[in-house]
């Protein structure tokens, strides 16, 4: 039926997408999954077939090899934090880096474990190992939220930006304030109280879990509204107020959800990153002690 025009912008060999959204997990058809698989398989086979004497141990030559590989990998994996903040001037995209970070990070669980030779004890060596496993676990948690939440966050925000949501709330507040002016002092006071309530207070935990109480003022108003309901032929200002409050509540709910998703997308990092630093400290202690007691 038709023919494509010659590609535009093909003059300077720029890197171009092929037009598909390939996520960080499927990056280059799972390139890093494959590499991580080869790495772990090789390490495991080595562990099984290389007969180190007297028993598999971090101090054998194979143990040192695994240890060096693991240390280098940990250092490199940590560098993602730096890379993320420096816009790349090279060809390696952050997506590729993330993909590698994930699969190599998971493979570290295998390689690190093989490095221990399954000798677990109450010492600084095991501390480093445990911290590493915790970092990996928190990372897995991160992967699941990254894989699951963006879609829900997108559905929830419905083309609104966070600023628009906040602005929407502010405009509701103004409307409420205006609507309360002609009312009885009692009601006006209630509205004023409801305007003073902070719908987002309560700290990170509440934000993540999304456990908020219904506004007290709203509850009271709803009751009052029922009290004076069913007066035929009259435009009930309380009902109007109630409707406004309900609309505000919907907006608050959406924004709370939005903030909840955002927090959940980030909170794992509050474990992942400090644990990483702890791991590096413990790892340094582990390395120094190993060489000190050589």
């Amino acid at each position, binding site marked *: *039926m*038709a*023919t*494509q*025009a*010659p*590609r*535009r*912008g093909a*003059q*300077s060999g*720029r*890197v*171009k*997408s*092929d*037009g*598909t*959204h*390939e*996520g*960080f997990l499927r*990056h280059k058809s799972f390139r890093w999954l494959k590499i991580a698989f080869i790495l772990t398989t090789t390490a495991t086979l080595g562990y099984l077939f290389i007969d180190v004497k007297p028993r598999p141990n971090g101090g054998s030559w194979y143990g040192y090899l695994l240890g060096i590989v693991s240390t280098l990998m940990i250092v490199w994996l940590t560098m993602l934090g*730096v890379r*993320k*903040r*420096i*816009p*790349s*001037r*090279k*060809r*390696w*995209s*952050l*997506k590729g*880096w*993330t993909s590698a970070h994930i699969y190599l990070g998971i493979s570290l669980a295998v390689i690190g474990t093989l490095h221990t030779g399954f000798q677990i004890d109450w010492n600084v060596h095991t501390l480093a190992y445990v911290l590493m496993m915790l970092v990996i676990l928190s990372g897995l948690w991160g992967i699941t939220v*990254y894989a699951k*939440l*963006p*879609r829900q*966050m*997108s559905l929830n925000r*419905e*083309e609104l*930006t*966070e*600023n628009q949501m906040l602005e929407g709330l502010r405009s509701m507040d103004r409307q409420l304030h205006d609507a309360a002016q002609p009312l009885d002092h009692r009601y006006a006071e209630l509205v004023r109280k409801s305007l003073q309530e902070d719908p987002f207070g309560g700290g990170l935990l509440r934000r993540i879990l999304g456990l908020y109480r219904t506004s007290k003022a709203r509850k009271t108003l709803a009751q009052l509204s029922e009290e004076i309901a069913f007066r035929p032929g009259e435009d009930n200002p309380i009902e109007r107020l109630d409707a406004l409050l309900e609309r505000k509540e919907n907006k608050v709910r959406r924004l709370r959800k939005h903030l909840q*998703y*955002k927090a959940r*997308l980030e909170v794992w990092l509050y474990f992942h990153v400090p644990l990483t630093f702890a791991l590096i400290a413990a790892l340094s202690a582990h390395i120094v002690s190993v060489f000190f007691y050589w």
Partner: protein
Amino acid sequence: MGDFALSELYRIAIVGSGPAGLSAASRASKLGLSHVLLEKTDHLSDTIYKYQKGKHVMATPAQLKLRADIDFAAGKRETVLETWEMQSDGNKVHTLKNAEVKAIAGAKGDFTLTLTNGQTVRAETIVLAIGTQGNPNRMSCAGGDSPHIQYSLDDPGAYIDEHITVIGAGDAGIENALGLVADPEQRNTVTIVNRSEEFATAKDANVQALIHARDAGRIIVRTKTTTLSVEPGWITFDTRDGEVRVQCDRVIARMGSAPPRKFIEACGIAFTSPERAAYPVLSATFESTNPGIYVIGALAGYPLIKHCMNQGYDVVEFINGNTQLKPADEPILEAKFASLPGSQSVDYWLNFLKTNVVILNQLSTLQLREFMLDSEARFYKRDDVIFVRNDPGSSLFAIAAGSVLVEVNPTDPSITVPIGVGSIFGEVGLISGRRRGATIRAGEDCICVEVSRSAALKLQASVPAAKRSIERISTERQLLQMFKSGLTPADLSEVLDSYEIQAVSAGKAIITEGELGNDIFVIRQGSMVVERMIGGKPVFTSYLPAGSYVGEMGLINGGKRAATVRAAIKSDVIKLDGTAFMRLMEKKPELYAKTKSDMAGREELNAFIESKKDTLSSAVDLYSEQAAFLMENGIGEATDVLLIDENLCIGCDNCEKACADSHDGLSRLDREAGRTYAHLHVPTSCRHCEHPHCMLDCPPNAINRGPDGEVFINDTCIGCGNCQRNCPYGVIRMEYEPPKKPSILSWLFFGKGPGPGEPSRKWKKENSDPTVSKQSKAIKCDMCSGIEGGPACVSACPTGAAIRVGPEQFLSVTRLEKNSA
């Protein structure tokens, strides 16, 4: 005036008392020639008399000297008219008012002019200076004869509280529209409509005033819009984005005017061409094909007052036997031709250009003189470089002698294609902002005319024949480039004889599935979508950007159209006659093979979609719906667009941060804003439109298109904000550069500075140097040109949610294949 005998034989009868006629009559009077000035109304200079009250009359072109016995300087309409009235009295001009000429008979030496009141006037020679205002171009759309359509505007103060549409954004239209909004107390809602995107025929000062009024919100300007129908109270437009119906109580149509051809031809005067806008054939002394009748002023193709007055003076001198007189613009033209070899006269060079350059063939000598005032004649020695690939430049070149060589291969300058005498090059510059596509050097010693972009647009707007030949040449080049297959211009001549350029409004189909038809369409501007009816629903199958062709399937298979092709945005297509194209394919088996293979690819695609339809109907539906969503959001005019898959976007804003960090600390995109459909998000970021709106009125011409197709703003930006207002997608910001941030590592380790991304306004204010002035400039996406690894927003996305693609890539079936895999 006096009581003269009507049977007297005058030396000169001057018909029309506008600037040209008045000047001619004054000259005749000064020279002591017996003359009569015939005016059909009861006042002098009816065209200017009919200008709206208080209108400022301009005196352009500024570089042209006035040569007349009456004065003229820019000023108010009233002042100008008063001066003329007084001075023509002072010059003892013999005027006969209420004298409309109905017929001219006789021959040189004894003409008889019959007036509508039955009187006759006899004269040896006649000067026709009747202008064209008596014959305005009329509305031809539905309802074009409605009583609320008017073709002039006397007093803009007479209308209150009305919705008024002014059609045509030439000088007259702009001045009328501005007059109607001059007093806000009148509360008029005024819309001005322009057929094209630019104001090619209007004076610069008028265009600037219009843009100011628009920016101030006093006037609505609709460009690229035509009128579909007029009905009482309403008007319907065809705009870039489809049909729009708006309120309208009054239509003022100022779409130019044409010579009153019937009358002129009845006087025995021939025209240059059968086109409506053509002018009479004139000699260099303004003499028409009927000896003894001279034509000057707007009727000669010269609408500007200064020209008219100079011609009035000149024509009387010619009639009086002064053959040595040179036109007033002679010194300017002499200077222009001075650098050409052979030290020939101006007349020689004008004639030389006219005969040798195809696009100038149809111009009268007078038009050519004016044209040359805005153009340059240049001489190039063999191998001189005329322009270099990727240089900015928007002028058009025409070859008057010699030939030039186009270096088609940037890596090997020895591979060239010649362009011969008479033809043009650089026509791509007429498309806004394109850089030079290839280096061009002189193949032998040659003479070229360099035409500024504005002069070329004006030429096309005022001389249909020139427009046609520029179009034909660029169409020919486009076809050659598109089909390749060893075609030569000669092969294409038959196909080109039948070509037709059609404007297609957004959403209109050029090909309808199931209909018979074998014409081929080439998309010249805009873009198209292809749809097929599958299971009773239109299913999107592909997207065609400008530069694609369509329709070969119907032609080769000889049957019904296999799909519907409709315009995604207002587009231009070149329609080629199918039968002629078929004959061309028979002659050129290579072309046939190419077309056939293109078609096979398309058929495969159709089959693929049809087969998927049963097994993966929801995937196909989604693909179709997303395509429709993207088209709605202006992707049809995009060449490169940022898309975010919200299934993957974690909202980290790393894209914005990376953008800011690679561009002086200012982000050029807003990730969160913008429309979303089925998790496909179109953020606020430049799409690098095929025909960028931002380029339209950039005073320093700071917006250009780079080698990768990126539209970027260079350092000459003056911060006027026109581009920001013109961008329909809101992707341009006006900002000043924030101070330099401390390095990322000192932030990471010591918490210095605001961290990655755009610094907050507060930080920016606190840390910028107060002694340096903060001039905001326009900033927008430049597609990270020059940065290896491509756009920073994409390479900084940790999850792969952000991609930058051409619509033709994104809307290709590979996506459907991958998604369903």
